[in-house]
């Protein structure tokens, strides 16, 4: 293999490129990215960058020296528009194309939008900087969607002195992700910090002066942030013969087709640890999967079987979650005290421990739960005997 192309120059693509070099791959390595900025980190966009605490330069994932040590053909500002697997070519928007022997797809996701003009989304550095400029004391911000992203942005905007209304179509925010009970606990903090959380409110469009709800009402706002989830960037793969269905479908080796692998937010793969197909939009997964895809492209043949992990910061709450919480059938508080917002919740599916979520707990307290999950522990063994600490 002499020519490897990685499409998508963010967390997953960079981790893949770096791993290829660390594993001794010496051929041509092309990293193609639509954004003009060198690879940067997204989680601080809804935290330190929106708050104005960090300069944008702090987001750089690697220094210029580190990037040049990778001996990359770095093509920033280049958009992949098509894939011809027979000719082994990636086509670019500028009319050029790049040949490959091995390909890693790491094109991530983009923010979903609402009909109408004028709403912000929060996915790129540019988005964050534009939104930041518009926030300040007395400004009215409507946040559409009370998922983790919307909740983080609402918290920061409050801290900046904005009047914030947080609109969520579901009766309980985050319930589909973390369960009804934990979703309720997490969303209580909004009211305590003066955010006007309105649940059961579906927004249909962004409009002049605010947003329109399904019942025809106008919620007034100076600025609107639409945080209603994302769409995988897979349009450029149409006609390539790869299976695409809410992400690039891969096997347990992150392989989409011979010589073609996918990693990060765009990849839907079979996680053998949970026996399920999943697509994970977490920062740690992007790096881990980029590394796994790179190794497997070079022939490692190692199934990618991680325990997914994410964190979220809201007000003074630190949330850490391990596992695959979606689709759980039971949640139990196994340590701490919900009233004090210091607790650890365990998630069950069938007879498996599938997830653990901690709020305000020392992260070390969660590690043993992570290890139990990594070993495929049964629910009855951890809950009756307790996890080893």
């Amino acid at each position, binding site marked *: 293999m002499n020519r490897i192309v990685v499409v998508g120059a963010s967390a997953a693509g960079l981790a893949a490129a770096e791993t290829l070099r660390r594993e001794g791959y010496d051929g041509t390595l092309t990293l193609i990215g639509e954004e003009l900025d060198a690879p940067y*980190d997204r*989680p601080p966009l809804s935290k330190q960058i929106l708050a104005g605490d960090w300069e944008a330069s702090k987001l750089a*994932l690697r220094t210029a020296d580190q990037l040049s040590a990778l001996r990359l053909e770095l093509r920033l500002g280049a958009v992949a528009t098509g894939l011809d697997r027979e000719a082994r070519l990636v086509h670019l928007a500028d009319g050029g194309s790049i040949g490959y022997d091995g390909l890693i797809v790491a094109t991530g996701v983009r923010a979903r939008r609402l009909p109408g003009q004028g709403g912000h989304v929060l996915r790129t550095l540019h988005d964050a900087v534009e939104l930041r400029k518009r926030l300040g004391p007395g400004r009215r911000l409507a946040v559409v969607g009370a998922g983790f992203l919307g909740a983080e942005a609402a918290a920061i905007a409050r801290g900046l002195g904005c009047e914030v209304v947080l609109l969520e179509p579901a009766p309980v925010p985050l319930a589909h992700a973390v369960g009804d009970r934990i979703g309720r606990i997490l969303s209580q903090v909004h009211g305590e910090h003066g955010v006007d959380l309105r649940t059961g409110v579906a927004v249909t469009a962004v409009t002049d002066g605010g947003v329109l709800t399904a019942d025809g009402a106008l919620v007034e706002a100076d600025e609107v942030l639409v945080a209603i989830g994302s769409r995988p960037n897979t349009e450029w793969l149409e006609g390539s013969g790869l299976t695409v269905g809410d992400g690039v479908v891969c096997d347990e080796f992150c392989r989409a087709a011979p010589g073609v692998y996918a990693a990060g937010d765009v990849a839907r793969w079979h996680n053998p640890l949970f026996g399920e197909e999943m697509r994970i939009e977490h*920062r*740690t997964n992007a*790096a881990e999967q980029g590394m796994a895809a790179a190794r497997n492209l070079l022939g490692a043949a190692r199934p990618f079987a991680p325990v997914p992990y994410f964190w979220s910061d809201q007000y003074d709450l630190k949330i*850490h979650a391990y596992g695959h919480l979606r689709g759980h059938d039971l949640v139990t508080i196994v340590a701490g005290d919900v009233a004090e917002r210091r607790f650890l919740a365990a998630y069950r599916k069938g007879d498996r421990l599938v997830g653990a979520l901690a709020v305000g707990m*020392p*992260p*070390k307290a969660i590690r043993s739960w992570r290890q139990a999950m990594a070993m495929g522990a049964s629910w009855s063994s951890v809950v009756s005997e307790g996890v080893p600490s």
Partner: protein
Amino acid sequence: MKVEFDEPKCVAAGQCAMVAPDVFDQRDDDGVAIVLDATPDPSLHDEVREAAAVCPAAAIRLVEQ
């Protein structure tokens, strides 16, 4: 190899301590990483590189000598 750690960036994910437990630990209270050994033995270099690569905050920087 020298391990540099940008503490304010750390999000207490603990990936480093899982991948390279001889070189990284986490503070008990808030989980922020601690570098146990800033000039690790060559036998540990592979896992330290793995830890730096997997750190979701890019808080670990390695100066290879």
